[in-house]
């Protein structure tokens, strides 16, 4: 299972606790993980990436194993630690605004 930590506002929308777990078939990438999250929690469609363009929302960041993966290719394979569930993916709202 892939572990994903959501920012507080998205937890409230999805009615979940801090961390969610989703199953990904095939390579574990940003795209496949987000596909799995949106399938499991359709109320999050459009909140992490645009409905149509699938572009990440500008004020969101993806942190993986202590690294900023925000600008990695959405199809780049994620580290084994994410794939085997020992490390979560952090989806973080940028510090901006009030």
């Amino acid at each position, binding site marked *: 299972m892939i572990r994903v930590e959501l920012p507080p506002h998205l937890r409230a929308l999805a009615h979940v606790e801090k961390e969610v777990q989703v199953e990904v078939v095939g390579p574990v990438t940003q795209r496949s993980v987000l596909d799995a999250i949106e399938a499991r929690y359709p*109320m999050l469609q459009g909140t992490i990436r645009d409905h149509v363009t699938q572009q990440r929302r500008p004020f969101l960041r993806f942190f993986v194993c202590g690294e900023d993966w925000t600008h990695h290719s959405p199809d780049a394979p994620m580290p084994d630690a994410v794939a085997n569930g020992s490390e979560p993916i952090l989806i973080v709202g940028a510090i901006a605004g009030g």
Partner: protein
Amino acid sequence: MSGVRVLVGTHKGAFILSSDGKRDEWEVSGPLFTGWEVYHMKGSPVDPNRIFVSQSSGWFGQVIQRSDDGGKTWTQPGTPPGEPTTGPGGMPKGESNKFVYDSSAETGKPLTTHQWYDGSQHPWEFKRVWHIEPSHSDPNTVFAGVEDAALFRSTDGGTSWRELPGLRGHGTGPKWQPGAGGMCLHTVLIDPANPNRIFIAISAAGAFRTDDGGKTWKPINKGLYSKYLPDPTAEVGHCVHRIALHRSRPNTLFMQKHWDVMRSDDAGDTWHEVSGNLPSDFGFVIDVHAHEPETIFVVPIKSDGEHFPPEGKLRVYRSRTGGNEWEALTKGLPQRDCYVNVLRDAMAVDSLEKCGIYFGTTGGQVYASSDAGDSWSPIVRDLPAVLSVEVQTLS
């Protein structure tokens, strides 16, 4: 026993203020949707327990919420918690926040472009829902005015949304341009006597009308004068801030423009100025008394560069003559050191026998008058900045 429910959208969530028909004592519930911007919330005239909310965020985009029990519980219409998250065929049901602009049938490319701040052409990009207008006859039909300016309609209670593309497609779209707050469709008025006639307003494009249920639209800006335009009397480009009408006289419209308070008696075909003796004819809100179609209210703001009341005095101005002659209503409102703004969707009236009027400020106060504006008192003083105020009169 009659009562009122005041629906308040703020910069950091929503609040519901409830009272009986006397409007002396208020119960405040909230915040709802904490931390999100609630640009607007409005109840269905057909089923007052059905309330729609526009919840948005610079981080997470747009969400539509709906309550069917008067605001006690809420769901995103396409994705109620606890129900299967996929529909027939396994397709996800997360449609309630999906606002996708129509493409041209001929080219498959995005329908038209608009003018950008630097004068170049820019594609339409969805930002948020500014205004929600439920149908007067069908609780499942609701309109959404959005930024970048377009009108969407849902006929399934907010579950899915489709654009009414005739508005952007009628030809003047490339001349529309964003105001300081973005290019927003902020006013949607359905003619109470004719659901096929709808008025909308856009900053900064102007007012438009459809007479065929949204298939075709025409600009209705004749008589407006905007000195910030190269052609001050242009067909489109005017920064209309708000339009209001009285349900008994849907051909008479009142407008608060960027500057100027205007009036039309022919459903917007022509306008004339009724600013009269106002201390400033800049402002955002305008509304009409529930029982007196010639009694209207505005809140003058000093200027487009100084968004606060003239002289630091918060005054509602009332005209009982449909404009031109205005009186200041000050009792109970701060008359010194007041530098708040009252945004375009932040005034509403109830329809109790003695008409109540409500408005919210960017300072977080919601003021109420239960005597048509003669006297005011705050229901709450310290909310986040108020973006919108709507009132439901309950029987």
